[in-house]
């Protein structure tokens, strides 16, 4: 069933100059049941992600985050508008493999993305699909396992690993493609706090040290603090876009979209309501602690 009004693709060239990912007026709807109008899951998304950026995407359940993520490596194709990856249009079938090797995806459930019953065989899966020679695959696998700190588990069976370790193996499996960009779709949602911490540290390092462009979809506000830029989605639209400082300083707007502020910001707001002179944009735990200390120092005991 076609959309009643397909939006014409935006004319023009290859999007923003140094953007890894670009969405232009992207609309999407899943196939509806007989006789129903398909609801628009994505409704006119315009965004671009620059090279080496760390972008976090927030939004309540069902706001279309996963649907958007799947457009970035041509798993889903736009109904209206277009998506460019390194200037390649995802609708062009001949480019699908090039697009997928440029943009890796890590999903929520580590169990459902591990293909092989030995860790290193699983990491080798993507380069094997790309037809790399076997010495090259060996090199990529060793390197990827080293980056995620799982080198000594190469011969292990994935089902005996903890959730966090499995997710690190899944990240290694994507890294072995040597992608320019990795999209993480709620990678920590099924992990315990320790596993969460290790996965987030690896994501930060990928962006900081290895220069991989990272898109992190999450509903843990504190994971979003470290990003360069936050995008808030609601009902298939981008409703807020800015630095973490800008976004989190508008808690009422966030609440309207069903989102919290990080614990640090909530604490500072509470203190401010009680008459303490604290800033509202101290996001990390350290900044927050410093802000409270200096506020206490100013106030006579």
């Amino acid at each position, binding site marked *: 069933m076609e959309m009643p009004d397909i939006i014409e693709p935006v004319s023009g060239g290859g999007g923003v100059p140094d953007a890894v990912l670009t969405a232009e007026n992207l609309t999407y709807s899943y196939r509806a049941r007989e006789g129903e109008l398909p609801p628009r899951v994505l409704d006119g998304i315009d965004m671009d992600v620059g090279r080496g950026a760390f972008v976090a995407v927030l939004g309540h359940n069902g706001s279309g985050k996963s649907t958007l993520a*799947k457009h970035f*490596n041509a*798993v889903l194709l736009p109904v209206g508008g277009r998506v460019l990856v390194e200037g390649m249009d995802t609708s062009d079938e001949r480019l699908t*493999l090039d697009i*997928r*090797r440029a943009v*890796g*995806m890590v*999903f929520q*459930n580590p*169990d*459902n*993305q*591990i*293909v*092989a*019953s*030995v860790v*290193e*065989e699983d990491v*080798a*899966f*993507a*380069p*094997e*699909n*790309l*037809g*790399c*020679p*076997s010495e090259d*695959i*060996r090199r990529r*696998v060793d390197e990827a396992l080293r980056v995620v700190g799982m080198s000594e588990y190469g*011969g292990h*069976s*994935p*089902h005996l690993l903890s959730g966090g370790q499995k997710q690190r193996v899944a990240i290694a*499996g*994507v890294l072995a*493609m040597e992608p320019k960009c990795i999209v993480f779709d709620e990678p920590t949602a099924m992990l315990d706090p320790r596993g969460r911490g290790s996965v987030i540290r690896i994501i930060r390092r990928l962006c900081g040290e290895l220069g991989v462009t990272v898109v992190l979809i999450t509903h843990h506000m504190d994971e979003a603090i470290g990003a360069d830029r936050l995008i808030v989605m609601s009902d298939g639209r981008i409703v807020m876009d800015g630095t973490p400082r800008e976004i989190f300083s508008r808690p009422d707007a966030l609440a309207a979209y069903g989102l919290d502020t990080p614990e640090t910001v909530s604490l500072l707001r509470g203190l401010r309501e009680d008459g303490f002179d604290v800033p509202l944009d101290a996001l990390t735990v350290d900044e927050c602690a410093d802000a409270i200390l200096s506020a206490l120092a100013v106030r006579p005991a």
Partner: protein
Amino acid sequence: MLRDVTIGQYFPGGTPIHRLDPRTKLVWTVIFITALFMARGALSYALMLCVLAGCVFASRVSARALMGSIKPMLIIICITAILNVFFTRGEVIARLWVISVTREGLISAAYMASRLVMLISGTFLLTYTTSPIALTDGIESLLGPLKKIRLPVHELAMMMSIALRFIPTLIEETDKIMSAQKARGADFETGGLIKRAKALLPILIPLFISAFRRADELAVAMESRCYHGGEGRTRMKKLRMTSRDCAALALGAALPALIVVTNMLSGA
């Protein structure tokens, strides 16, 4: 209890048997089974037992693991043996009501039981010493020529390796669902066959639903990692036949010939 299932269990190791090419081991297993069914008479069985014992020794698989693989099959072995005891005609040595036990029956039961035990041990030895991936690679490579007649060999091998990968995951999940249902008062242990079968329904339905969801997510994850069928796909660990494999295959080819000789010697 479900965790004891040992389908396709692999014990990593570096023994000469472990290091053989999976194709060699697959061919050897087929030869071994064929020889087992050719064998007649004590001498041939003794030869087969020696071959099996040699392989078990060389692969350093523990006797306990081997026993563990035979245990689930014990009932089938016993039933087969008992049927053989009762339904073979010959010299009657004992009579129980209408059933007569014959000398020939006892002998054929003993042969049948040892044949089954050797059959199971032999095939388990294959899975104990070969990683599931090497095994499916071997099968894919051996069946490779069948691609010419449009048999989806790569797809079959991929399905097999994914099935092996998900067996432990699904067993774990079954355990979890069973515990959850038990906690709500479900009873799987008592009642007749029909009642028990009905009690399984609340386990199977969630298990199936979750398996379909998993399959869906796995398919997306595989596509995301550039999977596009077997075409142009390379492997990290290429299968390679060494001189050791050639020697093993030559020995394998000799086995049926030897069995023919021992069969004749025992006058069968």
